[in-house]
């Protein structure tokens, strides 16, 4: 550092001299550039003041004692600022370390949560899940049973970030261990509720919908654990209705029973499941209305299910000026015509 200062003091002195003589903007531009390079070389502000004193003394050997003393005083005032500046280096290193941990964790999550959207005759499925930051606290998952039944889970862990990601991996493994195709949605939720309740502390909970679609009878059976209600689109009447359900979020109480709901999907009908990251979209500071959630869905309803979810996501992304405050998950099931 000493060397950088020594080789710079001449440059600083020249610029200072030229500025004192002419007050030109060029010298000030010069000192701006110089100051940035000092900063990059970790020169502290008290060292700048010291350099200034030296330059002044060399330029004006007859400089008054008062001014010299005053500059020493100013130098003293800069010491705390120098300490502060050194802090930033160590802060940045810590930040960098933790950021790379989070990136690795996010990559892991992607591997972990990979779920293939099942192909099944008669039903077209689209799904998208985008975290607000790097780690996702939303979860969705598909499974195709031996009898062609399609199992579908959509969940939202309370909160975001690292704690949510941890809870979410719990759900993932718990679900993985069930012979899902043979279990009813309400039973799956009842089991999951026990796992969550046992393993997570009481102020942490998870909302979830578990649904099963059977291509044999075109019926969708589902249960909800306090999750954001989905929508049913009746093609014949061209009408959307909210899927009202009852059921406590997972992890709130130990022994909860969930109700099973059922609906029949006729050609052209759709079912939409989502997390509150979709409905809590903010348009210029205000939350959108239920009706407005359906706007882009109506708009894109003739596209394929996957195109639909992607377009709807982009629509909301733009609406809230690319600032996501919550994880966003949207699943659409379309009964083919």
């Amino acid at each position, binding site marked *: 550092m000493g060397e950088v200062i020594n080789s710079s003091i001449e440059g600083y002195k020249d610029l200072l001299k030229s500025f004192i003589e002419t007050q030109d*903007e*060029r010298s*000030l*531009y010069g000192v*701006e550039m110089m100051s940035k390079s000092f900063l990059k070389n970790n020169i502290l502000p008290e060292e700048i003041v010291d350099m200034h004193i030296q330059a002044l003394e060399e330029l004006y050997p007859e400089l008054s004692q008062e001014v010299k003393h005053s500059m020493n005083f100013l130098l003293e005032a800069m010491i705390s600022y120098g300490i502060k500046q050194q802090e930033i280096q160590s802060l*940045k290193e810590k*930040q960098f370390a933790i950021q790379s941990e989070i990136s690795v964790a996010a990559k892991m999550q992607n591997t972990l949560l990979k779920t293939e959207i099942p192909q099944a005759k008669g039903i077209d499925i689209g799904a998208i899940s985008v975290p607000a930051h790097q780690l996702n606290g939303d979860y969705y998952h598909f499974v195709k049973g031996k009898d062609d039944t399609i199992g579908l889970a959509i969940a939202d862990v309370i909160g975001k970030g690292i704690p949510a990601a941890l809870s979410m991996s719990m759900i993932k493994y718990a679900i993985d261990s069930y012979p899902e195709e043979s279990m009813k949605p309400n039973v799956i939720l009842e089991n999951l509720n026990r796992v969550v309740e046992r393993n997570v502390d009481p102020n942490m909970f998870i909302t979830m919908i578990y649904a099963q679609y059977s291509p044999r009878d075109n019926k969708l059976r589902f249960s909800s654990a306090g999750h954001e209600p989905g929508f049913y689109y009746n093609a014949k009447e061209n009408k959307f209705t909210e899927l009202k359900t009852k059921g406590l979020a997972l992890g709130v109480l130990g022994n909860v029973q969930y109700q099973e709901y059922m609906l029949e999907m006729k050609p052209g009908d759709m079912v939409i499941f989502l997390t509150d990251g979709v409905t809590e979209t903010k348009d210029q500071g205000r939350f959108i209305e239920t009706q407005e959630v359906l706007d882009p869905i109506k708009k894109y309803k003739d596209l394929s299910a996957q195109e639909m979810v992607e377009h709807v996501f982009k629509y909301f992304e733009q609406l809230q000026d*690319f600032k996501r405050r919550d994880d966003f998950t949207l699943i659409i099931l379309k009964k083919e015509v």
Partner: protein
Amino acid sequence: MKPQSSCVRIQKEWDIVGARHVARDMAKELGFGIVDQARIATAVSELARNIYLYAKSGQIIFEKIDTMESKGLSIIAIDSGPGIADIGQVMQDGYSTSGGLGAGLPGVKRLMDEFVIQSEMGKGTKITTKKLVR
């Protein structure tokens, strides 16, 4: 009477100094103190250098704000350069260490009172900033 607005083309390094000069003069006339004069000049320096280094050419438009409610300086930098791919990233602290296109923009935001950036890849960038006399 002094002009209410001014436009400086940025094509060579010397133009950066010119833009700073205009900025400082207008700031002085508007009654900004020397600290704010220096901050405005530094912000303009940063905007102009970005144009000079990455967009090759562009301009900086200065406009005095002098209404009943507020008094200050509006500075708009426009170029038709390559544009900024990820504005969010550029505006993050710490990114500035990279020293590339837009590296100084978080600093400009801190130096000024208002800061809006619009950019389109291949089309260019427009940065609108404002500083008010307190």
